[in-house]
């Protein structure tokens, strides 16, 4: 069939017409490009009249392809594809070329702009002639959802979905859900008791009929794609039978082995070798820490087994793999605290009374190791002065360039708690105090009023090297006070380092499993930084909470709920359409060289051992085209981006590159 191409050049008011002679471009295209039967310019092509014009031409002229030279396809590709569709032309036979963002707006010379516009139109026309009709694929959405991470963001997402009546699998790596929020004493700026607001949510999740809780478990493998993911979860052996255990806690009470608790208590307190991280843990089923359990290390003891009234302790339990089918995944994997030892001049780990923010959270927590008393490492002395160092590992090119967003407010909270519970002077060493959210600035003003001292300067070092007699036996915090323009040395009893928020150590690895990437800093990349902060580039995988970037509790909760709403929308719709831009392998001519096998991060290429050919699993293919470019035999084709189409586009875009070519084209 002979090509009948329609060319539509938009003025976009004066946005395009200002620096491109659009009338000339349309006239020229109509005359010089083979196969063009209609070539028009119009004031606003995206207007309903403009669209109508295209639709009419398709019907009246029987167009086989449409080229729209207007703005970015990211803005209006859908608009024009839909117009074509309405007129009965397959939407994939419409090609947009970007005359506004890529030409008229970045250029002020009309002649140069017009020339470039012609090249882009020529390229699009050559391309569209070779485009093929494509049909989007539809798949059903499994109503079950996997939520990874049982911190506040994950809990919120879980509850939203479960309350809407959809099944949720909640996977948590630790023995209990709750996340970091369970470790906190108070929350800023309201000074709510963290546990009081968190634990009801935890038990709600624990008891919800639609929630399957998989604690002490890790996400192992993800396959499939939106609507139909298959996931493998490894349930680590607890050595306690979940069905038999009643959570009475007698095993913990009787366990003779005390261990420093580096997780929940941040090294500030102790737990037993069989333990539940904290009293309100959900589920209340303990786990045995085999590295420290006397039975596992020395083959003696078995006290827990002996005292258990339901015979739930099972030393032979093994890790177990659970396979689940879900339609969507919400990643809410949280964060870890910056390792303050990486800044040795701040003395953490070397100087006893230097604390991390997490240690201090436990120190002032009424349920913590000192029952909430703020005392030094000796366990009894109340500090007379406390320094709080901001931005430890944050806003520092040597470590993390970003702002961790919550530390300023947490530091103010700490300041308040110290002032409330002790008679100590509190010094805050800050770069900038950042309090942008609701009632945060008011909290700062309140602390100024409560007498917390603020010194604007990045701390150079925390040292016990005294220079003056009054410094002996103290920790000296040295900083340049940039408001006074002077070096300050403040001797204090206790120093709190406000460690920054960092991505989980395995965030990247975990992300790869479900096909999402990380930013330079290691936070999960959202689909759009402004307009789509909960979806990711992989359909069916959403992010919530700090794993997407530092944020406070309300923001994490909001994002958890937002992710759930997106998932609920997909479940309610029931089907999802998948773009038909995918790769395919001509199996007849594939020699099975296996170059492509390892190139797909989505595991969409499988090798058939029997036939000795490789094959694309269409549902998994995201259409990047890397395998197409790599295939040495040239037998992989990328739909809508095949070689023929791109070659034609190159030919077209270079229409004026050879002087001879210009002559030839002029004579067409």
């Amino acid at each position, binding site marked *: 069939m002979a090509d009948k191409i329609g060319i539509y050049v938009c003025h976009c008011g004066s946005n395009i017409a200002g620096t491109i002679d659009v009338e000339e471009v349309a006239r020229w295209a109509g005359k010089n490009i083979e196969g063009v039967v209609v070539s028009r310019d119009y004031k606003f092509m995206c207007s309903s009249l403009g669209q109508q014009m295209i639709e009419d031409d398709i019907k009246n002229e029987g167009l086989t392809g449409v080229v729209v030279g207007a703005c970015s396809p990211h803005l209006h590709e859908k608009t024009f594809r839909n117009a074509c569709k309405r007129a009965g032309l397959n939407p994939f036979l419409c090609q947009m070329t970007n005359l506004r963002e890529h030409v008229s707006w970045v250029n002020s010379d009309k002649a140069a702009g017009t020339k470039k516009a012609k090249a882009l139109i020529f390229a699009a026309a050559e391309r569209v002639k070779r485009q093929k009709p494509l049909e989007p694929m539809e798949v059903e959405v499994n109503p079950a959802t996997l939520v990874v991470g049982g911190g506040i963001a994950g809990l919120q997402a879980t509850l939203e979905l479960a309350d809407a009546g959809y099944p949720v699998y909640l996977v948590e790596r630790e023995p209990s859900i709750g996340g970091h929020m369970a470790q906190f004493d108070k929350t800023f700026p309201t000074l709510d008791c963290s546990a009081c607001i968190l634990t009801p949510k935890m038990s709600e999740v624990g008891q919800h009929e639609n929630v399957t809780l998989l604690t002490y478990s890790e996400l192992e493998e993800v396959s499939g794609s939106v609507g139909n993911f298959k996931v493998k979860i490894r349930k680590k052996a607890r050595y306690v039978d979940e069905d038999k255990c009643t959570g009475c806690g007698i095993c913990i009470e009787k366990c003779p082995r005390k261990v420093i608790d580096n997780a929940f208590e941040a090294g500030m307190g102790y737990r037993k070798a069989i333990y539940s991280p904290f009293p309100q843990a959900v589920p209340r089923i303990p786990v045995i820490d085999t590295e420290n359990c006397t039975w596992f290390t020395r083959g003696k003891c078995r006290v827990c087994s002996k005292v258990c009234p339901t015979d739930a302790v099972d030393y032979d339990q093994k890790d177990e793999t659970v396979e689940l089918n879900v339609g969507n995944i919400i990643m809410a994997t949280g964060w870890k605290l910056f390792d303050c030892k990486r800044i040795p001049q701040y003395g953490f780990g070397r100087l006893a009374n230097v604390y991390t923010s997490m240690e201090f959270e436990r120190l002032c927590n009424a349920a913590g190791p000192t029952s909430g008393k703020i005392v030094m490492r000796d366990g009894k002395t109340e500090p007379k002065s406390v320094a709080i160092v901001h931005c430890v590992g944050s806003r520092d090119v040597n470590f993390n360039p970003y702002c961790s967003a919550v530390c300023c407010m947490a530091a103010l909270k700490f300041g308040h708690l110290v002032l409330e519970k002790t008679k100590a002077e509190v010094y805050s060493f800050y770069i900038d105090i950042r309090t942008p959210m609701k009632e945060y600035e008011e909290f700062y003003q309140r602390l100024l009023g409560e007498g917390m001292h603020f010194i604007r300067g990045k701390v150079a070092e925390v040292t016990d090297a005294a220079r003056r007699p009054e410094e002996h036996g103290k920790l000296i915090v040295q900083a340049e006070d940039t408001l006074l323009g002077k070096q300050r040395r403040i001797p204090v009893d206790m120093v709190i380092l406000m460690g920054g928020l960092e991505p989980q150590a395995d965030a990247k690895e975990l992300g790869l499993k479900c096909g999402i990437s990380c930013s330079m800093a290691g936070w999960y990349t959202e689909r759009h930084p402004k307009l789509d902060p909960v979806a990711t580039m992989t359909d069916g995988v959403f992010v919530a909470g700090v794993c997407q970037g530092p944020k406070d509790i309300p923001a994490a909760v909001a994002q958890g709920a937002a992710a759930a709403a997106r998932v609920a929308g997909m479940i309610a719709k029931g089907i999802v359409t998948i773009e038909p831009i995918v790769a395919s392998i001509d199996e*007849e*001519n*594939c*020699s*099975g*060289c*296996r*170059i492509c*096998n*390892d*190139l797909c991060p989505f595991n969409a290429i499988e090798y058939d051992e029997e036939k*000795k050919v490789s094959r694309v699993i269409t549902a998994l293919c995201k259409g990047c085209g*890397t395998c197409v*470019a*790599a*295939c*040495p*035999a*040239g*037998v992989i084709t990328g739909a809508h981006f095949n*070689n023929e189409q791109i*070659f034609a586009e190159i030919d077209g875009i270079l229409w004026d590159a050879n002087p001879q070519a210009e002559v030839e084209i002029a004579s067409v």
Partner: protein
Amino acid sequence: MSDKPKGKLAFYWAASCGGCDISLLAIDEKILDVAEAFDIVLWPCATDGKVRDVEKMADGEIDVCLFNGGIRTSEQEYMAQLLRRKSKVLVAFGSCACEGCIPGLTNMNTRQEVFDTVYKEGSATMPENPQDVRPQPATKMPEGTLHLPIFYDTLRTLDQTVEVDYYLPGCPPEAENIWKAIVAILENKLPPKGSVIGLNTTVCDECPRTRGEKKIKKFYRTWEIIPDEETCLLEQGLLCCGIATRAGCGALCPAVNSPCIGCHGANDGVADFGARLMSALASVIDSDDPDEIRRIIEEGIPDPVGNFYRFSLAASQLRRKKKVVRG
């Protein structure tokens, strides 16, 4: 076959080594069937025949012309045009005609450089040339002017010179493939014009070695390692062109533990053989560090053109090395 009237066959030799002429004889006694089916009107290597006689023929009088060799001189170009005109079916026979082959590698130089090498620096054919005698396109003699064909800077493939109907790849084409092509011609069962007569899969398809997923940390040159005989040579770091090279040889080279060098050229629809190799090999380099990647490439592939375009330089997108503009 013998009932049909005899057809006319021409076999011509342009810029090539002569191996193709010999390969035609490798079909053994079947050459007699060929002789039975055809009158051989031109085969300078084996029979007597004059260009003048061909010139006198009517256009399209020759049924089939098997043309081997690339186009390096004006005479070869003239012959290609002449034979195109006189032949119903023109077959690019062998790697040289199809894609330039080894003579095409001269496209890394210019005529000047080639002549300097041959006539000035000395060669086996011209060990000494103190007067720096060079071939001249025209020499005036008392009887008139004698012309030598001019030697081009750039060797062209046959289809860059005239329209080609069929391609028979290989350096030289394998006897059975030649026979298959002849049978197809005799039985008039030819594929659509412009086709390559042969398979459209790559050497791996015929290679018995075991293949796994590929990751390459270091490329080895053939003299550096003795490869394992069971495993894919590429996986052992040898630059084997089999992944990109059209099948049909039965994986001759890998069968003797030597990497494929790519003489059968690319599959259908491939616009640049070397680019296929470059892209495939680069994709499986096992490093994400640009410096390391560069090191792996530079150390392992010191002669990229020789490795990627050994047979296909003249048919590649760029066809030749950039000429230095003088003055």
